[in-house]
Every structure is written in C-alpha cells, then in structure tokens.
C-alpha cells in the first residue's frame, strides 16, 4: 500500500478543534441540557470497610423535588460486575467491583445509592440525609496490612493478593550466583493520579417508545463500554448508544467503565426521564481511578566491568479495593518495562496485585512506565557510583546498541506474547541529550554548593510501546457538497485527533484539509470501534483512515467508470477529481450527486506488533538543603518518535507529560490515614503543578527511525515523555547531594522528606 506525498502530514497545522473551544462553544457533558432532565447524586460509603446493613432513604424522600433513591435492592437482575478490559490476570476475577455495593463496602467513596431529584442541589441535600448503616470491619489501609492476613476484603478468597505470577527470561538465578557484583534496593512510588480538569459526568436518556438508551459523556472506549452497559441492562447492543462529546482531559482515568456508567442509565430507564450526573472534585478524588502506588524490591547482578547480567524484582501494586477494568496493568507493565532499553539477558519477576481498602486503581498515562523507570534509573546510578564510573558511562556500556536492534525481549507479561524492541539509536539520543543539558560544561558544578544551593545533573533512558491492538475502523463519506465526512473509532481526549486525522485523510485524498470533518468515538458512527488508549489514535485510527481512503479512491474510480460507461482502467483519481482521457472530469461533489445512496468506503487497520519509541531525558537541579526545596533549573527531553503527523501536537504532548511527571515527583499525593480514610479532598490538598513551578523545560521530538510496523510509519507520542521523569529528577537530586550521601528511593520528593533524608544522612542540622 503506498502512502502519498504530504501537504499536511508532518506540518504543524493549527488545530481544527481550537476555534470552538476558544469561543467557549465546546460541548462538554455538563453543558448539555435535555428537556425534562433529572439530576443524580451518588451516595457514597464514608467507611472504608464494612458490612452494609441498611440504607434508610425515608428522610431524603420527604424533601420536595426528590424523585427516587435507588439502591442494590432496586436492581432486579443480577448486580453487574465491572469486567476486565485489558491486562486480565488469572485468578483476579473474584476481586472485581459490583456496580453498587449490596452487602459490603470496601472503600471510602464506593457507591451505595443514587439519589435522583429535580435539581442537583436538591439531590445533594437529599444525599446528605440518606442514612447508611455500616458495621465496620477492620480496614486494610496498605499492602503490609493486606499481606498480614488480619483482615480480608473478599472473605472467600482468604487472601488480599488478587494475582501473583512469576515471569522472566533467561536464567536469572544462575546469573546471580556467578555475579561479581550485586546490589539490592527497595523503591516506591506514591498513590497519585491523572486529575483531569473536567470531572466525570454522564447524561443518560431512555426512550421508552423505541426502547433505546442514549448516554452522552462517553470517552476513551465507548464501544467497549456500550457492550458492557447493554449487557447489564439486558439490551442488544444496537439499542444502546454512547455519544462522545468534548472531553476535558482523560490521561487514562476517564472513560473506563465505572459504577456510575451503569447506575445513571439504569436510573433513567427506571424513571423514564433523562438523568444527568456530574462529579464534583471531592467526589472525583475518591471515586475516579487512582494509580501509581507501586513498591519494588529489586536486585541487580553485574560483571566486574559494570555490565548488567541480570535483574530480579518483586513488584507490588496497591490496586485499592477492586481489580477494575484496567486489570493488572500497573504491576504487570512495571515488571515488563523494568529492564528498559538496556541489554539484560536474564530477568526474574515476581508480580503481585494486592487489594486494600482504598479507591480502585487503574491506568494513568504511561502505567507502570513512570514507576519502573524510577526504580531502574535510580538503581543504575547507585550501581554506577559503586563502580566509580559516571552514570552516563554506565548507560553507554549497557544500552542496547543499534546493531542489536530489533532486540527480542521475550514474554514479560502473561497476557501478551513475546515481542521485540524496534530499530533505534538509543546511545545516539542519549548523547544528544547529554550535550543539551551541558553534561561536560557543567561537570564542575555537580555536587557543589553555589549561591546557597547544591547543584546536580541526572539522566534517565526509557523505551515504551504504543498502539495497543487489536485494530481500528473508519468510514469515509463524500457528501453532495463534495466535502468528506470521516467517522473513526478513535476517541478525542484533548489530543487533537480532529486535526491530525484530517491531515492524514487530506494527504490521502489530496484535497484541502478544510473539506474534511472528523467525527469520532460515538457508537452511532460505526458498527465497531476500539477507542483511544496506549497512544493508539494515530497508529490504529490514522492507519484505518489511510485504508478507508485507499478504498474510497477505488470506489470513486469504479463509480466514475460506471457513470461514464468506460473500463475502470481508463479512470484516474487526482486531487479530488476523477479523470479520463478525452478530458472528462468529475469532482467529488458531482460524483456524489450522480449516485443513488451514500458514497462511502470503509477501512480497517490492525496489528499485534507494537512500535517502540525511546528516548533520554536529563535535568539540572539546585537543592536548598535547609528547606528541602528543589529547583528544576533545566530539563531536556530527547525522544525518537519517528514520523510525526503534527509536530506541534507532538511537542505539546511532551511538555504536558513532563509537567505531569514533575507533579508526580514533587507534589501530588493521595493520602490515606491508618483507617483507610482519604485525607486528600480538594485541590488545596492535592497539589498540581502551576505555571510558576516548572518554567525550564525543553522537549525535542526526533524523527530518526521510522517504525515498519504500520503503513504510516507512526508511533504513539502521547505518553512516553512521562516515563523517565522521576528517575531523572531522583538522579539529579542524588547527584547534587553526593556529599551528603542522599539517595532518594521513594516518591514524592517533598521539601520535608528531602530535608529529613539530608539531615539523617549527616546526623544533624546543617548550618
């Protein structure tokens, strides 16, 4: 299949989405108003663990304007359970979440009832006076408690380990026995999450005449969710539609199937009226997926000349109360990506997913990559120090070289087959990055105190896959005006697919981009779609549009041939026109007007071979040892993303991802007390980066090596940049504080925690 010359692909085309969003004409779900809409508020458990004894809604029902208070008892069919969408782990099925608590509650925030009223304010008033009686059970606030056996979330399982497996490659044990050098360390990443600016919301409308359910506010994977919802409502798929509107950020947490995705439509059908639900921020913090809380006990074996022989590690993810739709993604990917872009023949992994009485955890941008890069890159710097060699040199010795790629990594997750890293120049990009941070020029300031602060430099290298399968679909339709309507199964999350997909289509059809409109996500558009996650919108959606465009050109030629009554071979397609010798010419509009019925073509693309992007980041930090404050003086990111559809959009993803990563390193933390009560309840507690925090970031996206794993030659670019951030900063801080012997092993690195590390290392106050 040939991919055509570019007028648009590869250029920083301004986004099609922007004018409406800039005018305030976007349509986010809470902006929708349907006649007769009622408002729902979810009553949530305020106890982390207990037997749900009774729910008394009598006081609530007395409030004027309250229509209903629904509980598990009102669901006549079996209470639905959230399925695994990805990363299914054997044995984890009993740990899935019911759409509403019926006998037991397992986290603060778990839905126990849904109140429906004439207004949101009245529904909130009513929710306050719904009396929920819970008999407390000893809570399990963390993985240590979970493994102690004092209390089980799922009694029949007699364990809080939802899943455990061993996986690896080579013969790690033998390597360790023979190794000249080993080192073992424990690391951890704190519980934090995506925190998009728009919170979750849904508007569900049941049409009792057509027996059709429409739900607005879908995101990420509407087709999968439609199937789940239809099943739970006892309806065929065609009777349920999920409509995607504008989405205020997702980063993995919005768009998974949650209890509310059943409860709100259920309420609409129950009452025969549209029902709208909009989360508020405090609710969002306890009800939308958490992420990142992973513990790693890792040991490395090296030869006497600093070559890595083997890694073995135990990786534990604290999944909260249930294993949700993201399955075992956190621990499994952390294990898979622990080795990173390095030559490590022997690996042994023990992967545990543990339940605790906290909000369930799922995918958040680069799940398992952010965490494992921190574990690995920190460990490598410690090892380099032991060997008395520079961190850069250690990486040079151990990065997979260009000639070794593709590099077979074996099977490192149980739910996917073996795979390999693709071609790339890991070392070359690392060296570019080193130059950009001023590795040589700044050598003299490393570990030194200048103007009251200690300066340090740090690196991190990563590799990441993108483009999860199985496939994506797209249809093209030529309208009678000659414009082209594209429907694609990819979902918009703020990442600009309306622009990038139009660029691709425009270059395929060789027509001006402003004649193309992209409709995305909603189940009304296609019979089957797969959505946006694991950075797949360009790989899967983009290539599906290519396929559909190619098919469209064939369809156009066939129709023109028929119209002219000439053989197909006499027809050519050129820049939006059908031609034949003898100067006959038809525009798209003309051809669309001549045919009966729509002028449409379908295309699909699928592959199991994921491309792998890679890169190196570096940072220069200045540490105030008296306050524990860390200034990020400079941060550079170099990544080989291959072909870029829209370099402006790619660059925007990089900067955004890096700032999110820095938030995860320094600021963000979902904190629980020892009764598993969530202490973080507002954006005054959950600290997100603001404009004054990280002003010195430079991201360079390189088109060095193109993947051969899809026709467009694209890799995903939305997530990678978050992966190495924590390792880079941890290393830079350790470098700055070499004279103190401080080694950050745990995130977040806050002023008080860093201060404590500094003072513990020196045994007292530093003047």
């Amino acid at each position: 299949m040939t991919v055509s010359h570019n007028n648009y692909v590869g250029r920083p085309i301004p986004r099609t989405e922007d004018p409406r969003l800039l005018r305030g004409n976007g349509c986010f779900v809470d902006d929708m108003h349907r006649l007769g809409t009622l408002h729902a508020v979810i009553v949530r458990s305020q106890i982390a663990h207990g037997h749900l004894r009774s729910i008394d809604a009598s006081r609530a029902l007395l409030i004027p304007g309250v229509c209903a208070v629904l509980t598990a008892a009102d669901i006549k069919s079996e209470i639905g359970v959230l399925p695994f969408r990805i990363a299914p782990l054997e044995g984890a099925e009993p740990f899935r979440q019911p759409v509403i608590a019926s006998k037991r509650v397992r986290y603060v925030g778990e839905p126990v009832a849904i109140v429906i009223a004439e207004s949101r304010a009245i529904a909130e008033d009513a929710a306050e006076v719904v009396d929920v009686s819970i008999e407390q059970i000893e809570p399990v606030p963390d993985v240590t408690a979970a493994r102690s056996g004092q209390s089980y979330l799922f009694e029949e399982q007699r364990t809080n380990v939802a899943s455990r497996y061993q996986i690896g490659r080579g013969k790690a044990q033998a390597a360790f026995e023979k190794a000249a050098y080993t080192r073992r360390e424990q690391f951890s990443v704190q519980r934090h999450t995506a925190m998009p600016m728009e919170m979750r919301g849904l508007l569900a409308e049941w049409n009792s005449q057509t027996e059709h359910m429409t739900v607005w506010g879908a995101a990420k994977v509407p087709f999968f969710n439609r199937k789940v919802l239809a099943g739970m409502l006892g309806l065929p798929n065609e009777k349920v539609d999920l409509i995607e509107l504008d989405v205020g950020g997702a980063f993995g947490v919005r768009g998974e199937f949650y209890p509310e995705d059943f409860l709100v439509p259920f309420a609409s059908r129950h009452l025969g009226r549209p029902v709208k639900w909009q989360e508020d921020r405090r609710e969002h913090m306890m009800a939308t997926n958490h992420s990142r809380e992973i513990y790693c006990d890792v040991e490395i074996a090296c030869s006497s000349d600093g070559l890595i022989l083997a890694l073995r590690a135990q990786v534990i993810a604290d999944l909260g109360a249930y294993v949700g739709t993201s399955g075992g993604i956190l621990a499994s990917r952390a294990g898979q990506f622990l080795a990173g872009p390095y030559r490590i023949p022997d690996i042994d992994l023990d992967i545990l997913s543990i339940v605790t009485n906290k909000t369930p955890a799922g995918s958040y941008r680069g799940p398992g990559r952010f965490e494992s890069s921190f574990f690995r890159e920190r460990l490598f710097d410690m090892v380099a120090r032991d060997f008395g060699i520079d961190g850069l040199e250690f990486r040079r010795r151990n990065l997979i070289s260009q000639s070794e790629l593709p590099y077979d990594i074996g099977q490192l997750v149980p739910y996917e087959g073996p795979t390999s890293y693709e071609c790339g120049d890991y070392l070359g990009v690392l060296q570019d990055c080193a130059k950009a941070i001023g590795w040589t020029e700044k050598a003299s300031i490393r570990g030194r105190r200048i103007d009251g602060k200690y300066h340090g430099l740090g690196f991190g290298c990563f590799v990441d896959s993108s483009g999860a399968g199985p496939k994506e679909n797209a249809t093209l339709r030529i309208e009678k005006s000659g414009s082209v309507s594209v429907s694609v199964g990819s979902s918009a999350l703020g990442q600009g697919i309306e622009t990038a997909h139009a660029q691709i289509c425009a270059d395929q059809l060789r027509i001006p981009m402003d004649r193309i409109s992209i409709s995305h996500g909603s189940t009304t558009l296609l019979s089957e779609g797969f959505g946006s996650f694991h950075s797949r919108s360009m790989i899967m959606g983009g290539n599906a549009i290519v396929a559909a465009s190619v098919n469209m050109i064939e369809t156009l030629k066939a129709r023109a041939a028929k119209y002219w009554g000439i053989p197909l071979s006499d027809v050519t397609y050129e820049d939006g026109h059908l031609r034949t010798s003898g100067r006959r010419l038809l525009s798209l509009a003309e051809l669309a007007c001549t045919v009966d019925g729509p002028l449409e073509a379908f295309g699909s693309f699928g592959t199991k071979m994921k491309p792998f992007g890679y890169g190196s980041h570096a940072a220069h930090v200045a540490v105030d040892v008296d306050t524990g404050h860390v200034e990020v003086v400079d941060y550079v990111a170099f990544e080989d993303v291959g072909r870029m559809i829209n370099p402006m959009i790619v660059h925007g993803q990089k900067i955004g991802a890096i700032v999110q990563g820095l938030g995860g390193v320094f600021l963000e933390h979902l904190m629980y007390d020892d009764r598993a009560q969530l202490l973080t309840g507002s954006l005054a507690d959950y600290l997100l980066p603001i404009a004054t925090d990280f002003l010195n970031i430079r991201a360079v996206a390189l088109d060095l090596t193109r993947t051969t794993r899809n026709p467009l030659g694209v890799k995903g670019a939305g997530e990678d940049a978050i992966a190495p951030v924590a390792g880079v900063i941890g290393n830079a801080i350790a470098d700055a504080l070499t004279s103190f012997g401080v080694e950050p092993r745990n995130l977040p690195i806050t002023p008080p925690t860093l201060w404590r590390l500094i003072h513990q290392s020196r045994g007292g106050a530093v003047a």
Partner: protein
Amino acid sequence: MEHAIALLGQYQGEARIIAGGQSLIPMLAYRLAAPAALIDIGRLADLATIRLDDQGLSIGSLTRWCDIQCSTEIRKNHPLLHDAIGHVAHYQIRNRGTIGGSLAHCDPAAECPAVVLACQGEIIVQGSNGTRSVRAEDFFQGLLSTDLQDDEVITAIKLPPWNPKRLWAFNEFSRRTGDFALAGVAIHFEMVSDCISVPSIVGFGVGDRALVLRATQDALEFNAPEPETIARAISIAREEIDPPVDPHAPPDYRRALFGVLLKRALKEALGRNRGLMS
C-alpha cells in the same frame, strides 16, 4: 453596617457575614457550613477606603487585596504590609478577597494576621453594643478563632505610623506560589547604636495562629547583630513556635524551616541597613 449587625442579631448565630467570599464560599460548597442566611456587606463602599495620616494607616475592612497592593501610599509608607500582600493567594482571589475577611477567618498560615500583629495593629469592630478597638494580639485567639462576637463585624484595621528607619523583612515558604505557607515570618526592628532595638518577630504557619515571639525578641533586643546573637535567637525561636502535627510537614521540619526563614529574614533586614546608611 447597622443593618447588617441588626440582621446578625435577628438570626441569632444562624447567619454569616459575606464580604469577598473567597474563604466562606468554599466552605459552603463543601457543606462544612450551612448558614440560614448570608449578610452581604460587600457593597458598603465607605468601608473600602485607605487613609494615611500622622495617626497612622487606617484600612477599611472591605478593602480588597488588589487595592491594598496598588496603593502607592501603602507601598511607600508600609513596606512590610505591601510586601506581604504579594504572597496572598492569587491574582484572581486578590480581586475579591478583603482584608477584613481574612482577619475574621484567622487561618494560622495566613499572611495578613501576621503582618497586622507584627505592626502592633488594632482591629476595629462594630456590634450591637457599639464600636470597640481590639489589639491584634488579643484579637487572634486560636485556630480559625477570633475575639469577634456573634453580632460583631470588623470595620477597620489601624496600623500605627511606620517608622521609616525600620529594617524589615517578610519571608515565607510554601509548596507552590500562592499556597498557604508551611512557615513564615514577618519582622521589623530599628538599629540604635548598632544594636537591635524594638524588635517585632511574628511567625505564622507555625502555631494555631500567628505568634508574637517574645523570647526571640528579647534575645535580640539591645544586642548587636553578631552571628552568635542571631544563632541564639534562632535557636530560641525554633523552640518558641508551636507547629501543628501535620502529615504534610512534621513539627521538626517546621521548626528547622522556621529557623532558616528567620535567619534569612534577619539577613535581608540587616541588608537594608547598608542601604539606609549610604
């Protein structure tokens, strides 16, 4: 104001005053407060004036942060206050929040109570029993708690004239710009015969309210600012404060942090001396 006070009395504790609303409305949104009525005094224009004369500075309680920040009189004549305001919240909050509202709210990590305390200010309060003046250190009584009675409203804040010979500094440490301080200090003093005179040292974020650190002041007064004197004062200050137990910032960290901020503040203030003398 009389009407507002009468309404307060009428509602017998079930009504709250709203001025800028920047602290109160989040509490309503979180359902931490559910008053039967709100008495909106935001439009009492005569309470939003700034007056400077030889009696001192008088700021009406409804004066907004942005107006205090823009006031040339305050910038020229009350540098400590001017400097502190820049640290309060954010631009958008400063467009609505009032000085009276902040003082009535009495957050232990807020800048304004600390500055008013450091400047030995007075808070003028009006109630059904008339008007009274309360010294700042009597007004701020504890965590989110002041001397305001149920039927009283702050009408003005008075600061005595600022001595231009003063050396001063304001220093705080917060996680991000505009956040409440983990610790902060507002100080001023004069130099008399090369010795520190009439020091005022106030800490905030390090107790249940802004604190006048008397022992620290005593350790500095009448002494030359030699390193040993400063070190001793800082050591006393670290013990004199009363930091809360807080998962974000444990007491030992806050004590150390406060010591650092005070040291830097003293250095900054003394640095102004060279400016004054030249």
